[in-house]
């Protein structure tokens, strides 16, 4: 129970919501539970949404399930932080370890389109070397994929999401953003000023919101409420890009459909048990793909244990749920002489990847940081949970809201086996065991955090910030079902196919073997686009289950 009265399922009777309308629908192909579809995909975010569209376009029959609602942004998204809590995954996860993770709001979504419905649209690429961080840089593990392959798929998904970015991006191999960069707001100019004072490059942040009209999307109106859902459809979320493509190509989307279990027989997946409209049902499928993100994907695999798979599916190596990573999300805030009014425009208009591309540091891995523009309750919550301020002092600090600026890091944590998802003893309203998540930073994580706080504080001071305040937090999830070349140390191969069960796949952020020092959505989407092409190629060669092909 999460306290929300969800709407009734909307993708029903052969129609799905038209996300560009306030009440309209578009036609949707529907499949019967009894007919085995080629692919049952669990989750419709960066991984599942992209995969559903591309597999349907390749001619496969696809049903994609999401536990959350199918929103129409124009009609459903209010300019109100509290109301828009409805976009997040609010059912409790048990959080343990030395540095327990905060879920919900700053961590994961529950809607058709996944966490991209409320993500902040920062669209960055991995540094090429990170795909081989063990062999090239001496830490973490290598990805089972070459960076040049990933680079091609970044191009593909950046075009699909019409990323607005600068003509010359200062770091890494050349890239071409399809839409021009947005104007950098006052908060971003603080970062720019600080960077110039310290002699490091900065850039307007590449963002997944359009700077000019695109199809039915108007250009961004700079209302700044991206994190609580874009009510104009300027934001190029999976909900308004890949989901319409998937529907067009004949995929079925089942909203408000929580998959509780994957069934297996004779070493193969046979379909998914899901809860929709008050009842449990079973969808037969030739292939099942887990795309529920780094907590729900391991939870589902673990909860699908059976006689033949006593420790959960795809878990003979014991790696399901392990090597979970977050991004360090510490920040430094300061009071400026100017009125900044950081609530305008998307929150992170300027970025700095300097420390992602410098290797002479006292820690492994990298971090980027961005200018900030938190909405009022978001900022207040950070103040009180970090500082414990209340009373007149809280009023005084909040009264400076319009004069604040901040820099916040996205820092790469190290993959550690004991940072993991397991099943808790208690159950949710559907009777499914809740996720229990353990997270503890390692020394390297702590050294990086210190470095970043010091550097951001120097930069903010150089830009004229006073009364500097440091806060700590984490964001994003990576890993939990990592891909690799070795069945002993990974859950899937480089195609996302689980080592143990040939027609069971993973395609989401949980595949990531390392976290990188940038926000993960573009990497997850690029990887999903790549996996879709691999599956199509494998099926062409008769190496993947397929109905007609």
């Amino acid at each position: 129970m999460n306290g929300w009265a969800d709407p009734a399922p909307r993708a029903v009777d052969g129609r799905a919501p038209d996300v560009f309308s306030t009440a309209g629908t578009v036609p949707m192909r529907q499949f019967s539970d009894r007919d085995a579809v080629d692919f049952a995909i669990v989750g419709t975010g960066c991984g599942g949404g992209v995969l559903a569209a591309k597999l349907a376009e390749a001619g496969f029959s696809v049903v994609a399930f999401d536990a959350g609602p199918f929103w129409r942004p124009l009609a459903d998204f209010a300019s109100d932080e509290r109301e828009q809590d409805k976009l997040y995954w609010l059912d409790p996860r048990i959080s343990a370890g030395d540095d327990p993770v905060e879920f919900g709001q700053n961590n994961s979504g529950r809607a058709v389109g996944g966490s991209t419905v409320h993500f902040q649209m920062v669209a960055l690429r991995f540094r090429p070397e990170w795909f081989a961080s063990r062999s090239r840089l001496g830490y973490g593990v290598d990805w089972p994929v070459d960076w040049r392959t990933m680079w091609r798929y970044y191009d593909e998904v950046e075009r699909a999401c019409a990323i607005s970015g600068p003509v010359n991006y200062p770091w890494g191999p050349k890239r071409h953003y399809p839409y021009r960069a947005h104007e950098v707001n006052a908060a971003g100019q603080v970062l720019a000023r600080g960077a110039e004072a310290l002699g490091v490059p900065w850039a307007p942040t590449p963002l997944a919101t359009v700077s000019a009209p695109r199809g039915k999307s108007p250009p961004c109106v700079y209302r700044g409420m991206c994190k609580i859902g874009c009510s104009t459809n300027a934001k190029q979320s999976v909900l308004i890009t890949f989901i319409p493509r998937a529907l067009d190509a004949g995929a079925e989307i089942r909203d408000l459909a929580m998959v509780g279990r994957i069934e297996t027989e004779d070493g193969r997946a046979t379909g998914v048990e899901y809860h929709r409209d008050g009842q449990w049902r079973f969808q037969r499928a030739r292939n099942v793909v887990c795309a529920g993100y780094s907590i729900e994907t391991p939870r589902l695999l673990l909860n699908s244990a059976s006689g033949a798979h006593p420790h959960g599916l795809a878990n003979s190596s014991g790696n399901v749920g392990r090597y979970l990573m977050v991004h360090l999300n510490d920040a430094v805030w300061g009071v400026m002489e100017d009125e900044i009014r950081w609530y305008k425009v998307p929150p992170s208009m300027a970025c700095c990847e300097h420390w992602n591309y410098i290797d002479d540091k006292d820690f492994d891995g990298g971090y980027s940081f961005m200018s900030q523009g938190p909405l009022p309750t978001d900022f207040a919550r950070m103040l009180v949970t970090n500082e414990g301020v209340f009373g007149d002092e809280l009023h005084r600090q909040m009264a400076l809201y319009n004069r604040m600026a901040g820099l916040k890091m996205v820092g790469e944590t190290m993959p550690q086996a004991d940072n993991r998802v397991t099943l808790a003893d208690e159950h949710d309203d559907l009777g499914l065991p809740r996720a229990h998540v353990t997270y503890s930073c390692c020394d390297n994580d702590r050294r990086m955090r210190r470095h970043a706080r010091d550097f951001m504080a120097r930069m903010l001071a150089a830009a004229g910030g006073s009364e500097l305040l440091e806060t700590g937090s984490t964001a994003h999830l990576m890993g939990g079902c990592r891909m690799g070349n070795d069945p002993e140390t990974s859950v899937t191969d480089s195609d996302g196919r689980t080592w143990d069960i040939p027609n069971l796949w993973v395609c989401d952020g949980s595949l990531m073997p390392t976290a990188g020092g940038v926000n993960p959505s573009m990497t997850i989407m690029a990887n999903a686009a790549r996996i879709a092409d691999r599956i199509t190629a494998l099926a062409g060669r008769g190496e993947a289950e397929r109905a007609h092909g």
Partner: protein
Amino acid sequence: MTGRFHPPYPGWNVLDKWDSPSFNDVTRAVLRKRLEEVPKRRFFTRKEWPTLQALCDTVLPQNHNADPVPLANWIDAALHEERGSGTRHADMPAPPRAWRQGLAALDAEARARGAADFASLMPDARGALLHDVDAGRLRTDWQRLPARRFFRNLVLAEIVAIYYSHPTGQSEIGFGGPASPRGYVRLQPNRADAWEAPPGQWEETP
């Protein structure tokens, strides 16, 4: 700590834009409900209620508000509706129990300081007590409820989430308020659109 609080944007009220393009129907519906339908007490007992109200008054004093935001009612409603936050720390009971236990612990701490209960302490003494709780200077047994986590992650986080998503809290800090379909045009420092608060006035430069 400063004395009485002077909001830097006197006279600014985001609700004045109600009929403008900054508000759309869905936002108006949500806010109308928030402003007009204040939920009745359903979760907390009659005995717990004064403690909760005193706690809200101490965390966010509203003497300067002609029409104070009914924080306690919204906390009560969220608990009644089992509204989750997505996280439960392994060392914390579920929110309903944590809140009950925490309020009782605040009363016990007040008694250990010679008062009848938390609500009957003077405002300054309540503030001092909460600072003690936050710093772990406890005089009573909290029975495995982590005092600081309860105070920061449940009490403070919930109260500010209610206050600063309310037009009263938003207006006070000069936030632009609802902004759809119309967003903003002037993005430079010290520039504001006609539909934003005029320049703020701060007592002293901090």
